[in-house]
């Protein structure tokens, strides 16, 4: 099982065993990681599973940002060059060791 690390805005770390095939958003929800809402359930329609890819090297390794994710990210709060929507990242074995930082809030 690939291990994924979520770091809350206050620095609190959550190391979780992810299931291959599930999204990063669902992985966070399944492990009750605070800071990911996932209001739309993975439809790229709400922008409440926003996270930052901590390591620039990982940005290249992740699947590229598709058009719908890009459009959603444009309207999402506090985005940076390393922003992703967790619902658009399907976990594979290669995700082992991925570190994601969470914004201070998904809604303000």
């Amino acid at each position, binding site marked *: 099982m690939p291990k994924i690390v979520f770091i809350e805005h206050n620095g609190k770390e959550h190391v979780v065993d992810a299931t291959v095939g599930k999204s990063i958003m669902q992985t966070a929800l399944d492990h009750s990681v605070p800071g990911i809402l996932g209001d*739309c*359930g993975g439809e790229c329609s709400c*922008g409440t599973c926003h996270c930052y890819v901590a390591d620039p090297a990982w940005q290249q390794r992740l699947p590229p940002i598709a058009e719908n994710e890009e459009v959603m990210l444009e309207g999402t709060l506090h985005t940076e060059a390393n922003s992703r929507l967790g619902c658009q990242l399907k976990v594979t074995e290669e995700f082992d060791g991925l570190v994601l930082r969470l914004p201070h809030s998904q809604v303000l």
Partner: protein
Amino acid sequence: MSSSTVQWDPYNADLVPNPYPTYKRLRDEAPLYYNEEYDFYALTRYADVEHGLRDKENMSSHYGDILEFIKAKSRMPDAVFIHQDPPIHSAYRSLMQRIITPKRMLGIEQEIRKLCARSLDPLVGKDYFDMIGNLGAEVPMRAISMLLGIPEEDQTAIRESVDARMRTEAGKPIDFAKQQDLQAEALGNFEEYIKWREKNPSDDMMTELLTADFKDPSGTTRKLTRDEISAIVNVVAGAGNETTNRLIGWMGKTLAEHPDQRRQIAQNPGLIPQAIEELLRFEPPGPFMARYVTNDIEYYGRKIPKGSALMLMVSAANRDERRFANGDSFDINREQRPHMTFGNGIHVCIGAPLARLEGRVVMEELLKRFPEWEVDYENAVLSSTSTVRGWDSLPVWVGSKPKGAVAPKRAAAPEPEVASGPVPLEGKWNVVVKGPTGPQPAVLTLARSGDSFTGEQTGDGSTSQIQDFSYDGKQIYWVNRITKPMKLKVEFKGEINGNVITGKAKAGFMGSYPFTATKA
């Protein structure tokens, strides 16, 4: 286990004040519930409601998300995207997603704050006000109008715009045919404003709707038609007004009942965002969403046949103890887990960022001025419809309520004295419509010839001939077609008692407002 089988009648007015014990029984005893009388299924546990809302394979919004609409197999124009499945839904939703963004909503925080000040500042120093009439009915209406670019002077009565049409009387299902007529009329009225905005572009959402390119359901890139814009705006304006108004009412009621938590929040406003989430979880303004089931499916070993209507009860799911410890208690400090008040899946509320923003700013501005209040339940009015549950009126005492205090008379103006006998209809009547921004005066002049009446109405500097006048000795009805600030058909329907007429004035898509007319 309770001795009798749990029953849930969505039209039972007795359940409106506290439906939650019934919801708990449904979750525990009948997690898949079937109501024979109205022929629908219901899911109440969090995991099931979530699964249902996300289930694109078996759940359809083709006939909308309201039980009565689904039973009537109602269809709406494509652009009413809440009423569609992919790919039609996706085409309009993705366009709207570009326009109604969290960034855009957060960008108007200061404006929302000003709207709150405008509603709340005049109340400072008073002992008593209405959380709905003075706050809930004003701020969301003005916020959505501002986003749409509706000029200030035209906003006088936009509240209750669309959802007023969907209002059910307690204990009665929606009158579906009537609703459709009203819908058609509402769409027609908005046309006028759109035409005007087309000639007067600005940086508002309406201008963006008029100019944005999108890929329509057939794959053609084009602009929205006026009909499509009308439909979209009606959905957006309606949803934005009614639900956020209800959220503000629940804020007033719930915080009053939890004074310790209210004090904690007032002392530490940093808790407000989580207090809003807890409030949304605890009292969702839209308690349920319905779907049309497109394939035979199974829950708890029982079949839900293809063609059924299925209620997905977020208000029950949000209190499911399987997910939220002590789900029936309000606790702003509870472990933060997402709720489903905004729905889930492809139809999740597109206005959620605005609702959260308004909720937060209203709570901040309210507590800043009024850290404590007490609800006057004797004069409060709670209602529930097929779409929303909340307060129509929630009067409160602010500060310390004097011992033995009596609520002030509800009417702002002294009640006119009722003459003992009937007065002749002909002559001048002073009409006052109680709009959300204050009383709107007008003069109705009636002339009699034989048994029939004609007349004219003057208000806001213009005069028009009234139409369709009728009077049966008690009930009176007339139509006034106004042109300022926009073309609108206003229907007056009232009852005469001596020299006073009381009733409702319905201003097209803008909703209904009480009026009184007194013989001059």
